């Protein structure tokens, strides 16, 4: 960074200690710039893994905010702490046993504490993915697995919802169960896939595949260059 000197420097407070960092960094790169080397609290660095949950409050503001360190730009006067781990017990299950047609409400059965939801909506406000967390908890409560699965689809399982919940709900584990039930039981099975799997088991493509495997580069190149392209799906 040759242009470091040209940049405006701002103050951030890492667990209370002040550092001066150049403007424009993310919380993650600002901590690294300050000399922290991550072991915990850093994963994909791209907003997909939920490892870098960060809690902060800005100087003079009453509100506690939550976000991902890798996706949030630092601002002057941020007081930061990371939450790299969330103690939230999940309930095990066998996927064969959670058919919604055979059960009254599996979600409520596995996570009875969802009935404690008082609609405070703190979970939704804590979510860095802007998921309507309370809404999917409410959908789960009334057995609407499909809605719970769809609403929670963008969940990166950082756990900030569950850390903030006054009713001690384990939202992201609940949502995971809802999505698996939807994927397995509510979504219809693909008949095209079933047909292809059957054909493969009958060895339908073996001969052609073996032929390709034994071709020389020149032979392959010829076939490849003559491919036709599917125009529409």
């Amino acid at each position, binding site marked *: 960074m040759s242009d470091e000197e040209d940049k405006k420097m701002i103050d951030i407070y890492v667990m209370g200690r002040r550092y001066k960092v150049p403007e424009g960094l993310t919380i993650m790169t600002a901590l690294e710039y300050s000399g922290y080397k991550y072991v915990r609290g850093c994963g994909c660095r791209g907003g997909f893994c939920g490892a870098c949950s960060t809690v902060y409050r800005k100087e003079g503001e009453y509100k506690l905010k939550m976000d991902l360190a890798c996706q949030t730009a630092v601002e002057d006067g941020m007081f930061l702490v990371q939450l790299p781990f969330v103690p939230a017990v999940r309930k095990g299950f066998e996927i064969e046993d959670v058919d919604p047609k055979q059960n009254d409400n599996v979600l409520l059965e596995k996570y009875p504490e969802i009935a404690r939801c*008082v*609609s*405070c909506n703190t979970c939704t*406000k804590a979510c860095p993915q802007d998921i309507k967390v309370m*809404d999917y908890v*409410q959908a789960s*409560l009334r*057995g*609407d697995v499909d809605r719970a699965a769809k609403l929670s689809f963008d969940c990166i399982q950082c756990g900030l919802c569950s850390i903030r919940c006054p009713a001690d709900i384990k939202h992201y584990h609940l949502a995971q169960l809802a999505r698996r039930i939807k994927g397995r039981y509510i979504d219809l099975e693909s008949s095209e896939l079933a047909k292809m799997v059957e054909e493969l088991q009958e060895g339908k493509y073996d001969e052609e595949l073996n032929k390709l495997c034994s071709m020389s580069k020149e032979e392959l190149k010829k076939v490849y260059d003559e491919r036709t392209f599917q125009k529409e799906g």
Partner: protein
Amino acid sequence: MITMDGYLYYPGCTLKTKASDYEESAMAVMDALGKPLVEMEDWYCCGAVQSLTTDDLMHQLAPIRTMCCAQEEGENELVTLCDMCYNVLKQANKRIKDNPDDLETINEFQDEDPDYLGDVEVYHLFEVLKEMKKEIKKKVVKDLSSLKIAPYYGCMLLRPTEIAVDDTEDPKIMEELIGLTGAAVIDNPKKTECCGSYHTVNRGDIVEKRVKEIVGRAVEDDVDMIVLSCPLCQFNLEYHQRVTDFDVPVLYLTELLAIAFGLEVGLKKHKIDPIKKLKEKDILE
């Protein structure tokens, strides 16, 4: 009172699970009447008893959030079916409207979520049906005159007085609606007694005592069925007959209307099968 083409409908959790018969029949009946019930896009648990137990304002948050949802859908009238939800939503709404300070506190707590403006009115389906007597009568295609029916109100539709759908001591709304189908309605002296409510969870004995009295009286009067609108009363009155030798089905009023309209809906989740009785009377084939 309500002048829309249909009604924004708040179901409550029970109507989506145990009392789906109620919802299914009510929807079908209202469709048939040309005033469909349209389920709200977003809604939350009414808060059930939580919001009634103490004077803690925060317990009103759940029902008020549902008011906000209606408001965000651009509506100011909301219809619900479940007596418990009706009672909770109506009471919470009234309290907030009567106490501007409470409204402000709730809105402040909701923070960046939209404020509730206090403009939504909550109605029970009975209040809607009461205004449509003519239309209901026109839709009746089945002769129910062989049926003898005891109406049952329980508590939640009538108490406290401020939110009652009818006269707290001697309501008539259900009698009038049942009468439209041609069925015989008896004057049920037990119609506003409590079914035992949530005691069903851990004090079944209390509920059993209530059921013996309420259903026992109906048996004495030789009725064919009891008609009501509360899913919890419905469960209690049917389920706890297991300790008696009674055999009286308990139907939602909309199930009865659906039968009269010739609609094949509901009647699936009863602990005491109403279909047998209806077949005996040649009402169902």
